[in-house]
């Protein structure tokens, strides 16, 4: 009897894990395909963020990512959160990539300043330089 219960529990656990992975994969696929995502699992968005300075790593994280196409041009909205207990002055820039992962108009996006209160969430938006952009990354650094 105990063995049957254990096996049932294992099967249920396995199914729940599979479902969880599927939901996460769907969220990620939606984001990459230009749909919208609304999960608040900060770990899910690590692929969208590039830390340009080790000092800022793990201090700023992505809370939410939304993407859509406006007249074939990719538009993104990224909610960042200051995970520290101190105010922070950061700078960020968007990098855009085409379907072959080549950067679109490389090194032309400006670094933009952003001021954060401790624990504060701030949403920043970007628009791709042209319709060839199919994905993006947000680069984050410390304002010197």
């Amino acid at each position, binding site marked *: 009897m105990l063995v049957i219960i254990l096996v049932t529990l294992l099967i249920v656990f396995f199914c729940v894990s599979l479902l969880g992975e599927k939901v996460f994969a769907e969220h990620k696929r939606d984001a990459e395909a230009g749909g919208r995502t609304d999960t608040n699992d900060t770990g899910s968005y690590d692929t969208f963020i590039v830390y340009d300075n080790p000092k800022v790593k793990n201090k700023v994280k992505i809370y939410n990512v939304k993407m859509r196409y406006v007249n074939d*041009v990719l538009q993104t909205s990224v909610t960042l959160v200051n995970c520290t207990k101190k105010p922070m002055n950061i*700078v960020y*820039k968007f990098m855009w990539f085409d379907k072959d992962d080549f950067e679109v108009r490389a090194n032309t996006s400006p*670094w*933009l300043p952003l001021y954060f209160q401790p624990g504060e969430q701030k949403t920043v938006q970007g*628009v791709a330089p042209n*319709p060839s952009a199919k994905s993006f990354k947000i680069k984050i650094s410390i*304002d010197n």
Partner: protein
Amino acid sequence: MKNLKNLVVLGLIVVISFGVLGCATTSGGSPAKVAYSDPTAVETTTIDFGSSDLQQIAEAMVNSMLTFPPIVQVTSERRPVIFVESIKNKTREHIDTEAITDTISTKLIQSGKFRFVDRTKVDAVLKELQYQASGIVDDSTRAQFGRQIGAEYMLYGNFTSIEKLAGRTKDLYYKFTLKLMNVETGIIEWQDEKEIRKVATRKLVGR
């Protein structure tokens, strides 16, 4: 003793000469060390208008124009032709507003959604057309008169600033307004603003 005195005088001359040369080099504006830097980096050398302000303004204006629903509708059907009028600089600073409109028009052209005509080059184009019509150029390849495209929209705007000084703190507020007017109807089809606030606090010691 005399030799020692001469040595001291010579030493002083050398030290003073180095000092004068050093001052001349610094006051001449040549930094001691030159290095390339990121042109897109946030620049806060002084509180005055700088490259970061220009880039922020251009980015905000272009993003706004490319996602404004009525403009999206127009550009989904065709690539409208724009001409850049001018940005009135109402700030106290000498700012090359053409540099801002150049960055904006570059980004808009690169988006593939707009085309531009440059009315500042009319004389040069006219000269070239007259040369081509002079009989020197092969008729089958020469550009024809009266084939230029009329601009549908005019891009223009204002740039203002408010400056406040209190003790050691200076507060500088910029407002950049850009408008897109339909040349035929006179209607402003799109307009947006970008505000920038900068605060500088002078140190108690030093410059």
